[in-house]
Each structure stands twice: as structure tokens, then as C-alpha cells.
């Protein structure tokens, strides 16, 4: 670490100390305390949400009086490919969420057919930040007003030369979104809708922008879940995506899922996902399983 790195680290440490000291002064802050499942789970980009969609809920088990965190591992098995995502995040005072995820798109045997070589992978690093702007999905039960959050995701793909060769404009880009999530306890329902400005091709695995469109597109993510108990939810999700590359059409993604809180700290999500056609291989449908630890 150079001098500027040490300065930045010292400044960050001082900042954290100030924030925590301020909180401690106002009232004792603590770990944990959030109601089961109300942190959501970690989605494919490592952000708090459902499986494919991003929600307005803040990750981690903390309440507004504390700090929390989350670690997740996700695997998607498709006919021609597989996807692995490892992520982690911190939640500050149930207000701000910062996440990092490493996502791998593994072409497996299909890599040879695409001329990339067997087992060729596309990897991306995703840095996310989300802030809750208004509303409270859990406690505001007497109004229709949802919890609303806005966020950014910076995605950097490690295969710049190849994604440009298939027509993409960039190997790194920023998504911007606004999410609204409502828990309707008297109906045992969780509803969420997100609008995202993005240029990502296949979540960014095939780069950003392309020969068909270079511009940001407004895309939609929607989730509906039914709470069978306080710890068990079933639901479905939809996520539209841009279609920027002429070599292979890209369609919307769907899933049906079940999420279960095994303990206060551990939850599992299993889903059947339909990611449509990916890089000329049609009908990529398969199993999604994700394990999350929250603290």
C-alpha cells in the first residue's frame, strides 16, 4: 500500500469510527435484530433482492440501530452453460447497502462449439451501492406507500477483446436503478418493481452496448412472492434485458422460486429459471440454487 493508500485507509477508518461513535451516542447499536427474510436474499448481481430482480430492501440482519452483513453463493445450471456467483455485502443502519460480487459465466463444453475453447469463462466483478430513500416495507402496513431505494452497479468484464469481437461497445459499465418493494402482511404478499437503466448484454457477461444499440435502455424487474410462513416464501420473477447484439438475440428472463430461512442467519433459495437464448444457444432453462448467510 502506497502513501495515498494509507491515507485513504486512515480516512476510511476515521469515517467509520465517526459514524459508529455517532450511532453509539444516539443509542447503543448492535448486530442483528431484523425480522426473518426482511433482508431479502442475494440476487445474481450480489444485491439484496430476489433471485433475478433487485429489491428495495437493505441487505444484512441489522436494524436502523446497527450494522449487518451478508455472504452468498449461487449456482445456475443451464443446458449449454453454468453460472456461479459469490458475493458479500454490508448493510448500514438498514439505510445503505454496499456489495461486491464475482460472477462467472462458464461455457463448459459449449465453449468449444463457440470456438472459445472448452471451459472458457467470462468473469465479471460487480460493485453495488444502494440507499433507501423513503418508506418502510415492513412497518408501514397502514399505507400503500412502498419502500423505495436507488442504486448503482459498476460491472467490469474480464474478456474485453472477445466481447468487442462479438459486437459489444464496452467491457465495463454502470447500471442505475430505482426499486420499490412492499410487504403486504395482511395478504402475506411481497411485491417489488424495479426500473433499471442499463446497456448490459446478458447481465454484462457479453459486455455493454452493441452493434444494434449503443444507448442505455430502461428495463423492468418485477417480483411477486407469497409468504407461506414467516420463514418460507414462494414466488415468481420477471426481468427484461436489452437486445444490443446482432449475432445473438437476447430475451427476458423468468423464474419461479422458493426461499426458506433455515435459521436466523442462513437461508436457501431454489428456483427454476428461464434465461432464454444465450449466445445463439436456445432455451437456456435450468435450476438455480443459492445459499445466503446474513448477520
Amino acid at each position: 500500500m502506497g502513501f495515498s493508500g494509507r491515507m485513504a485507509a486512515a480516512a476510511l477508518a476515521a469515517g467509520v469510527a465517526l459514524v459508529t461513535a455517532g450511532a453509539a451516542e444516539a443509542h447503543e447499536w448492535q448486530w442483528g435484530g431484523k425480522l426473518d427474510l426482511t433482508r431479502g436474499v442475494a440476487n445474481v448481481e450480489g444485491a439484496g433482492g430476489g433471485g433475478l430482480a433487485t429489491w428495495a430492501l437493505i441487505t444484512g440482519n441489522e436494524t436502523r440501530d446497527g450494522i449487518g452483513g451478508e455472504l452468498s453463493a449461487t449456482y445456475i445450471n443451464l443446458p449449454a452453460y453454468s453460472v456461479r456467483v459469490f458475493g458479500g455485502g454490508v448493510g448500514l443502519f438498514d439505510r445503505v447497502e454496499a456489495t461486491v460480487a464475482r460472477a462467472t459465466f462458464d461455457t463448459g463444453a459449449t465453449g468449444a462449439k463457440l470456438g472459445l475453447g472448452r471451459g472458457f469463462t467470462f468473469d465479471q466483478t460487480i460493485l453495488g451501492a444502494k440507499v433507501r430513500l423513503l418508506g418502510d416495507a415492513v412497518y408501514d402496513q397502514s399505507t400503500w406507500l412502498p419502500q423505495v431505494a436507488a442504486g448503482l452497479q459498476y460491472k467490469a468484464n474480464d474478456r474485453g477483446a472477445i466481447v468487442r469481437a462479438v459486437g459489444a461497445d464496452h467491457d465495463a459499465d454502470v447500471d442505475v436503478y430505482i426499486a420499490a418493494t412492499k410487504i403486504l402482511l395482511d395478504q402475506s404478499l411481497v411485491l417489488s418493481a424495479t426500473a433499471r437503466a442499463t446497456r448490459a448484454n446478458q447481465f454484462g457477461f457479453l459486455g455493454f452496448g452493441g452493434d444494434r444499440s449503443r444507448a442505455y435502455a430502461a428495463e423492468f424487474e418485477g417480483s411477486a412472492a407469497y409468504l407461506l410462513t414467516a420463514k418460507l416464501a414462494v414466488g415468481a420473477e420477471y426481468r427484461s434485458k436489452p437486445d444490443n447484439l446482432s449475432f445473438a438475440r437476447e430475451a427476458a428472463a423468468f423464474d419461479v422460486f422458493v426461499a426458506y430461512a433455515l435459521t436466523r442467519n442462513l437461508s436457501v433459495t431454489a428456483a427454476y429459471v428461464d434465461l432464454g437464448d444465450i449466445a445463439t444457444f436456445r432455451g437456456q432453462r435450468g435450476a438455480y440454487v443459492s445459499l445466503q448467510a446474513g448477520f
Partner: protein
Amino acid sequence: MKPSALALLVAIASGPALAAEQPVAPYPQSDANAGAAPFKDDRVFQALHGKAGVARITADLIERLKTDSRTSDIFRAADFERLDRTLNEEFCYVAGGPCHYSGMDMKTAHKHMGLQEIHFNALVEDLEAAMTKEGVPWRVQARLLAKFATMKPEVVDASRN
């Protein structure tokens, strides 16, 4: 010996179980103090198994609050006789049962308690557990919890003053 005299003797002998409530300063009594409007019909009350079910849920909830590490300190010096009676009234009234709430309003009842969200959430989870033990379906639990969730600002924020 007449039966009524026998009952009185038993009552005196059994001591703490029938301890009287501690006196409180007078306050205006009203169902509005319950902090939530009741359901318009008694389906939720029936799903809680009526007054007997509400009594079992309340007794179990109080035991959980006494032993839950998140709440045990808060309830250490509580008047459990009064808490049991007013919680029975609260649940019965809000669930649409034939009861009136005679307790203090939520702000007054939690004044100076220094509560945080973690304590409110602990009570919600302990109430869920007590209702599950009573065999109340989740769907009904969620409808009742929706009524109580809205009290969070009155319970938690007011307790800081």
C-alpha cells in the same frame, strides 16, 4: 365451611399467582389507546381460539419475553399481572373479539423504556412463536401482525423520551 370461604382460603394460600396489580397513576381510558383499529368481524379472534386461546397465547408470549435474551432485561421489573391482563385485552380487542382495552396508550405505556427496533422485532417473533404453538395459521398471524407493525413508531420512538 361455605364454598365461597373455601375459595377465599385457597386464593390466599396460593399467593403470588393471584398477586394484585401494582397501582398506576390515573389516565383516560379508551379503546383508542390500543393503537390499532380492530377487525370488523371476529374471524381472526375465532382463529386465535377465542378468549381461552388469547389467554394461552398471552401467557406463552410473556414467558418467552422473560427468557428471550433480547427482551429479558426490559421485562425484569414488569408488573406481569397487569401486563397479562392488558395484553389479553389488546389482542382480544384488535382481533375483533368482545373485549375493551383498558390499558394506557402505546406512547405512555412504553415511555422511558429506551426501546430499539430489535426489541420490537423480538416481540413480533415471540408472538409469532406463541401463535404457532397455539396452532394459529400463518395467514391469520400475518393479518394480526400487520395491525401491530404500524405501532412501531409509537412504541419505539416514544420510548426514547
